[in-house]
């Protein structure tokens, strides 16, 4: 799992540019015939006559997009997804074609004046023409941050949501015998509004939706008020801004975790949403839930997850695949 996770998190894939991630996933699921839809969602199906369960894990990560190149070759940019400007000065970025850059900050008097308008990317170009050979307006870039193996705890950019992609790959590789029809969708454009899941759910018409995604934790000094923490197991979501988890689905997950001795915790998240928010409103409604991987420092360059939680999420997802659903 660690090796796969390192490969996935280090790859380049801001919202709208998920190709590299899709290729890695395809290579790891070569035993399946996969298909890619109009928006770029990767769909992997294991048909069966039972209930249709749609699992989703989004492939995209937050990033930046170039909006202007000035005469001296500096790039101005806007955010893709929920990027906090305070993290950015001194950070490094990479473009799809491999061009590297660092983020610089204009001289400002107070840190509270820091806005995205004060930031720029320096790709080492000395003029606009030189910059234009490497980058054009509208190009996306992702952040760079090496993968740290701290034992159980793992750190990288894009743990949101490649950690769940890794789990979903493992799930499809190790799929238990089941009467349920399992579809894994590796979705695009989650970070900009749950978009890939919207179209995939419409096309697939599932009976149940299950998103795998990261969630925040409340186990850091003076952090968010919530009970979720690392190494406390798979987080079974109750609600977030996009979804009230269907009580039947939530209770089913709790029941499966308890029956199979899978470590779990319940999650009430006051911010953010997941693909399940889109899936449950598809057509005439799809009871949906989320199994979350607790993740510290989400949307920073150093997102931290615990391998044991990922294993628990995988076990619970497997159990749900095999569940007898009404």
């Amino acid at each position: 799992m660690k090796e796969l996770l390192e490969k996935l998190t280090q790859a380049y894939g801001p919202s709208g540019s998920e190709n590299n991630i899709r290729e890695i996933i395809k290579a790891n699921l070569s035993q399946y015939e996969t298909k890619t839809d109009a928006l770029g969602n990767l769909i992997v199906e294991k048909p069966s006559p039972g209930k249709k369960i749609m699992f989703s894990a989004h492939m995209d990560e937050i990033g930046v997009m170039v909006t202007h190149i000035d005469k001296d070759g500096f790039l101005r940019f806007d955010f893709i997804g929920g990027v906090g400007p305070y993290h950015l000065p001194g950070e490094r970025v990479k473009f799809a074609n491999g061009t590297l850059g660092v983020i610089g900050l204009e001289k400002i008097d107070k840190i509270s004046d820091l806005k995205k308008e004060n930031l720029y990317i320096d790709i080492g170009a000395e003029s606009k023409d030189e910059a234009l050979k490497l980058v054009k307006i509208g190009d996306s870039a992702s952040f760079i941050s090496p993968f740290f193996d701290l034992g159980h705890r793992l750190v990288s950019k894009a743990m949101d949501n490649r950690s769940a992609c890794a789990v979903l790959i493992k799930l499809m590789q190790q799929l238990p015998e089941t009467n349920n029809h399992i579809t894994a969708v590796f979705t695009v454009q989650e970070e900009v509004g749950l978009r890939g899941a919207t179209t995939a759910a419409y096309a697939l018409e599932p009976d149940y939706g299950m998103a795998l995604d990261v969630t925040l934790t409340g186990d850091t000094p003076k952090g968010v008020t919530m009970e979720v923490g690392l190494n406390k197991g798979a987080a079974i979501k109750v609600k977030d801004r996009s979804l009230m988890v269907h009580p039947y689905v939530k209770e089913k997950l709790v029941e499966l975790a308890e029956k199979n001795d899978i470590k779990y915790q319940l999650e009430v998240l006051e911010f953010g949403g997941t693909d399940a928010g889109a899936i449950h409103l598809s057509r005439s409604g799809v009871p949906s839930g989320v199994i979350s991987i607790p993740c510290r420092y989400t949307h920073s360059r150093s997102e931290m997850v615990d391998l044991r939680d990922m294993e628990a999420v995988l076990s619970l997802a497997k159990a749900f695949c095999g569940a007898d659903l009404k």
Partner: protein
Amino acid sequence: MFLKELSEARGVSSREQEVRDLIREYVKPNVDEVFTDSLGNLYAVKGKDKQGPKVMLAAHMDEVGLMITNIEKNGLLRFAPVGGIDPRVLVSKPVAIGEDKVIGIIGAKAIHLQKPEERTQVLGFDDLYLDIGASDDEEAKRLVKIGDVATFTTQFQELGDLFLGKAFDDRAGCAALVELTKGEFDCPVYFVFTVQEEVGLRGAAPASYKVAPDVALVLEGTTASDVGETDEANYSTAVLGGPAVTVMDRSVISHPQVVARLFEIADKNAILLQVKRTITGSTDAGKIALSRGGVPTAVVAVPCRYIHSPVTVMSVKDWEQIVRLVELFVCDIAHKGVEF
């Protein structure tokens, strides 16, 4: 060119009748079928039974405006914005209210009566009134009613090398779409004039659900801020810079291969094309792209200065280029298909 009539026609979101009727008359001779739906979207269809990918081209008919919410005892009217209007552009402007186009003006306290500190304060919607010259509420009620909408009264005119008018967002797109109905295409083309874009991209979702296209382009009038004190980094688009392609905004990531195809065509045909440089704002494309199982969609726009105000400014050159670009794009789709 049909821009003058369209610009001067009145069509506040959900009250697009005048614009719709104008467009219907113009496109009728050029297309096979014209119809409307339950929201008021207008569809003009050409080559319905032809082979090849189904193309949807969309532009919104509605404009931002005001709605009368109350008639006060003294005959002055209270109003609320329909769509995104900056209240600062409203002061001292005439507007036309309701079907009878009753003229009203938006008044403000005379400068003589203001304290110095008042002059730097923004007049918000709660501070503004419409004056139609009625001496009390009874007289006012004979002229207008609650729920009536009001539009700016700007006349279309030339402004140096440019055009000046109201509602180029998105009558510029509507005019381009009307022009395009004259073209001959080897695939089914659905020209859709949508309603209620300015109040939340309302018309586009049902329209794209109904059409179920294989590929879609949204034609817009978009922000150009190539003016005065704006840093070049914040221009968004520039007038006379050619049509602007949106790579990403708040509502959509234009399909990368559709964007690539547009640039290819522009290159080959010496059409000037610019990328919209901010990712703010939303368009109908956000709804169309997510319709049903997903639709490859992109946005191309005519750059317009001062949008959502009574005086928008654009260039006919940008407009002509967008018509040409879209025509070539549809032909290209008809021949090469949508296997992106």
